[in-house]
């Protein structure tokens, strides 16, 4: 896939080209280590998939990158801005779609996007055309003036995508964007992400459970398990690395290989894998609301 790198990368090329650079990140909830010495670099312009089971630490890592959680140990930079000390600058570069269905059902699609145009300081004269463009980009123009509460699950996800896009972010962060959606809606959401990425050249960091999605849409993936990256590379590379062990391995095989039986649970890992009642409830609620 084509990537849009800045023409003149000053200084250390790898650093300068990094959309996200995360070094030695630790995060613990009480005695449970959710993220354990995470090192991660997302290159500018790529679609980077962070894969892992519930409780792997993906959402915690995303929340640290999005400035929602403090960074107690380690360092995270977003396009060179330190997440711990330069929060506002980082937030202006981000578009974030959380795992929950976060559009407000009491507002229309257009109003949902306008709110984000306002909080990102889009000037008044530019607001309406920009919101209209965001609506068109996710094919919601016809439904723009209906309450979001009447939207289907896929439409809500696309609306959230438009909310994230209205501020022209350089990094789009999507936490389980297709959880609970039917296959048609999933494809539709990914098609929009892909189109927008190609049109704008923005970097996309996405977490997902679905290996097929990661294989099809991500340039590179990281397999995360118990707070650490267990494997990193393009889906083809990861599969090729395992071809000596298995015949025609899928990404899911790669994942099983690296995550081991922890993926299946059923051991003492269940009590220490970081997934608490709230995580499960939140995931199920989202899936339930998507229908």
């Amino acid at each position, binding site marked *: 896939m084509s990537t849009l790198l800045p023409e003149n990368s000053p200084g250390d090329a790898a650093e300068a080209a990094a959309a996200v650079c995360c070094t030695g990140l630790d995060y613990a909830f009480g005695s449970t280590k959710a993220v354990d010495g995470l090192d991660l670099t997302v290159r500018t312009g790529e679609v980077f998939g962070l894969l892992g089971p519930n409780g792997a630490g993906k959402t915690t890592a995303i929340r640290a990158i999005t400035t929602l959680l403090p960074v107690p140990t380690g360092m995270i930079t977003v396009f060179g801005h330190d997440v711990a000390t330069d929060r506002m600058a980082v937030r202006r570069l981000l578009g974030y779609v959380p795992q929950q269905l976060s559009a407000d059902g009491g507002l229309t699609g257009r109003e949902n996007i306008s709110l984000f145009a306002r909080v990102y300081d889009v000037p008044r004269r530019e607001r309406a055309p920009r919101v209209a463009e965001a609506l068109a980009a996710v094919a919601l123009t016809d439904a723009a003036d209906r309450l979001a509460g009447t939207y289907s699950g896929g439409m809500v996800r696309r609306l959230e995508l438009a909310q994230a896009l*209205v*501020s022209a972010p350089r990094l789009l962060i999507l936490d389980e964007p297709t959880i609970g959606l039917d296959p048609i809606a999933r494809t539709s959401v990914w098609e929009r992400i892909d189109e927008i990425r190609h049109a704008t050249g923005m970097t996309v960091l996405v977490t997902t459970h679905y290996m097929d999605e990661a294989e099809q849409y991500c340039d590179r993936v990281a397999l995360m398990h118990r707070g650490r990256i267990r494997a990193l590379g393009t889906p083809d590379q990861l599969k090729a690395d395992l071809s000596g062990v298995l015949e025609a391995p899928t990404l899911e095989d790669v994942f099983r290989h690296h995550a081991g039986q922890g993926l299946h649970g059923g051991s003492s890992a269940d009590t220490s894998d970081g997934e608490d009642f709230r995580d499960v409830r939140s995931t199920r609620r989202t899936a339930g609301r998507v229908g």
Partner: protein
Amino acid sequence: MSAAPAVPPAVSAETPAAGAAPGSSASLSLLLVAPRARTGWQLVPARVLAMCIVELQKLRHDRTELYTRAVQPALWLLIFGETFTRIHAIPTGGVPYLDFLAPGIIAQSAMFIAIFYGIQIIWERDAGILTKLLVTPTPRAALVTGKAFAAGVKAVIQALVVVVFAAILGVGMTWNPLKLIAVALVVILGGAFFSCLSMTIAGIVLSRDRLMGIGQAITMPLFFSSSALYPVTIMPGWLQAVSKANPLSYQVDALRGLLLGSPAHLGTDIAVLVVAAALAIAAASALLGRLAK
């Protein structure tokens, strides 16, 4: 309370629009340029305006809450007010009791709407709306201030309903536009304080059920220990002390002064409300992070 979350129909439904024109050539020219950041003093008023607009848009789409919440103040004025006007049991300094009561009920209905605002914050947390707002370039204090004033605007609209009802019952209030603007300001300040009190409690208890319980437990004591129903002078000493520490008393005093022209300490009242709102905003902002975790 806010409207229901974005619940889609239960059918597996991508609308035709979903499949429409993949690769559609919608122009994205505006979405390529990031807007210029507002900085400094302009940021907070801009966020306050954004939150107030959202609140008004929600009220425009669904006015049910406005009507259902009007029932209780209407009953207070119609039943309690009319009856006690006849009994002449409460010394009101020559003002008919219904007139004396009306500003108290305006303050009470505005407080009731604001004191449960924390539930909306917890709902927004559960729905992911709060998380998303916290990732925007909005400092927490600006977000809380925005929410506080949005609650204030909602309270003003609720107060308007009570004012109209009181006028229908024949309460002799001022129609001086400047005084009415001041009334709106006082109601907004009260709404901002009580909504932040609610958001502060939300930040401590973190659950809707507990907040509901605490909200129920504190509303009536706040109401009865204020000067909404009777003058402070007829209260026992200990209750007078409580009343002095209750911002609702200052709000009622200011509303009486403005609406009825009765003797009031407007300067003190507004100063107390401003300081109380500022402290509550600071407390709620400090605890907002707990809700985001």
